[in-house]
């Protein structure tokens, strides 16, 4: 069997690796730029297991386990570090909702801790808690090195014989008798039996060419990074009041972002000064000692938002035979991709839908079985 994976980000790499491990046949991976180019390399490089819905939480827990297991095998150290996430809460309503959801988290074995303002001050003396009512701390969440994870998968997949076509955009997918047949590239035509679209924000363009529409849209998100400083912020701090988040990378840089209205679509990946100023204001209020930090770089990437803020994987029965998708992560793709690759590979090879994957099928939109994930950061 000849399988083409389109997209050389974390999802494509994970799928290609998992297919190769299962001896799926001849696997080709097409990437229009270089490996990691799209949203993977622009990621905030964090993972969490705390989601609003049980489906997503369960998925993330398993996914990180897979990545940790794989870490020892990779040629690259994914630098997984569980520094925790802390959500600063500002009103009774927020606290109540977190308390309610935390019952589900405890059931899944990822208990968090509720902190009173004094406790926050004790643990993280640098946080200004004057207007904070409480906080939820999730110790299981943390950070990873996004590029190294991708490179790790890349080198594993390469060893297993996956054929990489970098700098090779796919212009068209030929369908014959409701079956995927060929991929058109600049260098010619490739015959294929299975096509997996792991093309993130660029998926709609390809799907529309074969007449498929799913309600997803890319939204540009901007990120700020400061010069490196001596490490002092362990968790990722999410300010539920201003919508800002901030954390420190293991290299020492302080990274963060804030909600800022942006029209949807594949708009140019540039950053706005107005956004930087808004973030600077929010974050120096929360952590006053960051006033002396200097912003070194800003960049932008896309969140591929789906209507229920959860990823889409697998296929619909009516679709051309051999066509699969894995995208629409709505901002939390990096943490989900290790498991997505594994489940989708099983699904493609056996035709069976694994239990964990079932809620995320594209058919959920027609069947109105939406997941409704409310905890999206940034």
């Amino acid at each position, binding site marked *: 069997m000849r399988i083409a994976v389109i997209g050389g980000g974390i999802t494509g790499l994970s799928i290609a690796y998992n297919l190769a491990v299962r001896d799926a046949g001849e696997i080709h991976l097409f990437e229009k730029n*270089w*490996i*990691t180019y799209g949203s993977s*390399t622009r990621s905030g490089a964090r993972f969490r297991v705390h989601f609003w819905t049980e489906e997503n939480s369960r998925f993330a827990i398993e996914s990180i386990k897979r990545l*940790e297991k794989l*870490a*020892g095998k*990779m*040629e*690259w*150290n*994914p*630098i*997984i*570090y569980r520094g925790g996430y802390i959500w600063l809460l500002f009103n009774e309503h927020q606290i109540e909702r977190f308390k309610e959801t935390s019952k589900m988290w405890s059931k899944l074995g990822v208990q968090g801790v509720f902190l009173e303002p004094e406790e926050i001050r004790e643990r993280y003396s*640098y946080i200004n808690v004057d207007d904070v009512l409480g906080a939820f701390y999730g110790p299981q969440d943390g950070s990873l*090195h996004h*590029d*190294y994870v991708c*490179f790790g998968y890349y*080198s594993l997949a390469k060893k297993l014989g996956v054929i990489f076509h970098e700098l090779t955009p796919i212009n068209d997918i030929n369908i014959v008798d409701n079956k995927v047949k060929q991929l058109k590239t600049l260098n010619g035509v490739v015959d294929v039996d299975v096509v997996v679209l792991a093309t993130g924000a660029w998926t709609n363009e390809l799907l529309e060419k074969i007449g498929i529409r799913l309600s997803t849209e890319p939204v540009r998100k901007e990120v700020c990074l*400061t*010069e*490196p*400083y*001596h*490490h*002092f912020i362990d968790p990722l701090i999410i300010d539920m009041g201003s919508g800002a988040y901030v954390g420190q990378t*293991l*290299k*020492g840089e302080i990274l963060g972002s804030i909600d800022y209205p942006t029209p949807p679509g594949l708009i*140019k990946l*540039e*950053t*706005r*000064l*107005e956004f*930087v*100023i808004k973030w*600077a*204001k929010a*974050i*120096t*209020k929360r952590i*006053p*000692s*960051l*006033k*002396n*930090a*200097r*912003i*070194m*770089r*800003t*960049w932008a990437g896309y969140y591929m938002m789906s209507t229920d803020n959860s990823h889409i994987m697998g296929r619909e029965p009516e679709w051309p035979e051999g066509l699969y998708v894995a995208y629409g992560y709505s901002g939390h793709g990096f943490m989900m991709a290790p498991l997505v690759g594994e489940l989708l590979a099983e699904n493609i090879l056996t035709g069976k839908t694994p239990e964990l994957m079932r809620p995320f099928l594209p058919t959920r939109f027609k069947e109105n079985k939406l997941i409704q994930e409310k905890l999206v950061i940034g």
Partner: protein
Amino acid sequence: MDNFFNGIRDRQGEKVSIFYCGRNIEGYSSEPVSLALYSKGYKVLGRSKKLYRFRGFYSLDPQDRIVLTKIGDEYVNACEIYCQDGQNIEVDFSTPFLVKVFSSLLDGYFQHRRFVKNRILWRLAVDKIKQMANHPEVRHIEARKTGRIIRVASDIVVVGGGLAGLTAAYTVSQLGLKTLIIDKSIELGGRLRYDYMDVPGVPVSREYLLEDILTKISSDGNIKTLTRTIFTGFFEDYPTAYSQEERTLYILKAKGFIITTGVVDLPCIFRNNDIPGIFSASTVLEMVNRYRVKLGEKSLIIGLSQNSLRIAEQLKRSGIDVVMVDNSRSQSIQSDLSRVGECIVNVREIEAVGRKCVEKANIIHDDGRDRLEVDFIVCSAFSNPDILILNQLDSRLIYIGGVGFVPVHDEYMHLKDNIFIAGGVSGSPYSILHLIEGEIAALSAAYKLGAKEVEPLIEEKIKEYRTKLNEMNVKWKNKVFRNSRSELIENSSFTYPPTLFIERPRRDAFICFCEDITTEDISRTVHEKGYTLLELVKRSLGVCTGRCQGRLCMVNAALYVSYLSNLDPSQVGLTKARAPVTSIPLYILAGGEEE
């Protein structure tokens, strides 16, 4: 001779007392702290990030923030801060025990499979690793400063106040357009200020040229200037500039931009090329001529070019002995060498010797080896256009052998949209070409803004420009012009990196000073991992992600990768620079009362 040492005016300023690790040192209020310390023999300004190596300053440019020094309670670039009475400068000379023992833990790779496989060990290791890097503290410094944000409107913004920039600004304002000059240095003039030799091709003397243009600029009501202000690049919504001195962020509004950022003298790659006492070519001229600091008795100049000869001659005139070395076999300029000093060609490897500063240099060449006593080393092998802003703008860059990565522009000095370039940033050698390009850029910008009457003048200037290009033998510009008319970029050919002075990758030959990345790190990435795109090398090692934003390392890294992988430099490519191209403190962005 006497006249030679008479600068435009005396730049000594008043005497002040500063303290280096508790020792009282005399400085002058007009001197950067780094320079005052160096002149008194205190050359170490800080330690490097990973390997805790002693570091001084490579250039006086405020954008080259490769080492931060604790002055008072702030960590700053000591080249950006001028001496003030009672300043305290602290340098920590100790190396943490863990770094001494486990320095390999901090290498660019982070490849510790033994640790990773054992999850408990990894957890212990990662806790240590995050504390091991030598970074400034931000946490314990009291944040009491406030900044401001000011909006400035002008018809044209000229970035850079050197020969090209000043000419452009004056030409634009003569057409009745409001002009704003932004320059990062303390006063306008650029190279004219510190290179005391005449500008090639210009019929008048340097002194006359500088005074004439400065008088014109200062008496012109249409021109405003912001000195000690760094243009920080184009955000999607606004172009910005930032002044550390004024604690101000400027939001610029203009109809056109003329970028004349000049060139960057690239650091040479040789063993121990990071220790204090190794300087960029222009910085040495600045120190010797403008600040009149006694740098030592003996110097080594790396690189044999017309530019090196100018430096050698000026060092010689201030009583410094010069030895010049180069890796090439070029004999063309050797004839002029006898009057400036000794010369060693066909050099294969250079090693700087010394711990806290350069003391000696070992030179291995085809005919044997030499051991020289030197007080400082000048990197003058190669200058690349300062393309940081243009790279951030996503403009096309083309590699030209011997010139570097050059932004693709046409004869009208037009880059893209409403942006024009002139001078060193366009790749032109320091000469009358800078002047003509300044005029052309200004006229084209004015034309774009609606001054259609200048058209015949532009054509006339371009004719003159073409003649001068021919006279000065700058043939490669035609290739740049040709590329500006088509979408495709012509391939360049493989070249030996002009800054490379090692025979094999070395652990002590650095490419990136901010992140402590050596030639060995890069060679491992290229050979073991097979990455040959600079974007991927950057992502695996962190090269070009440090505080200097790749200003000093990007071109060197690209040329070195191309050398290792036998690809031509345009295939290796550069990495994308992002706004802001120089870092801006958060208190300025946050506290900014808009005015």
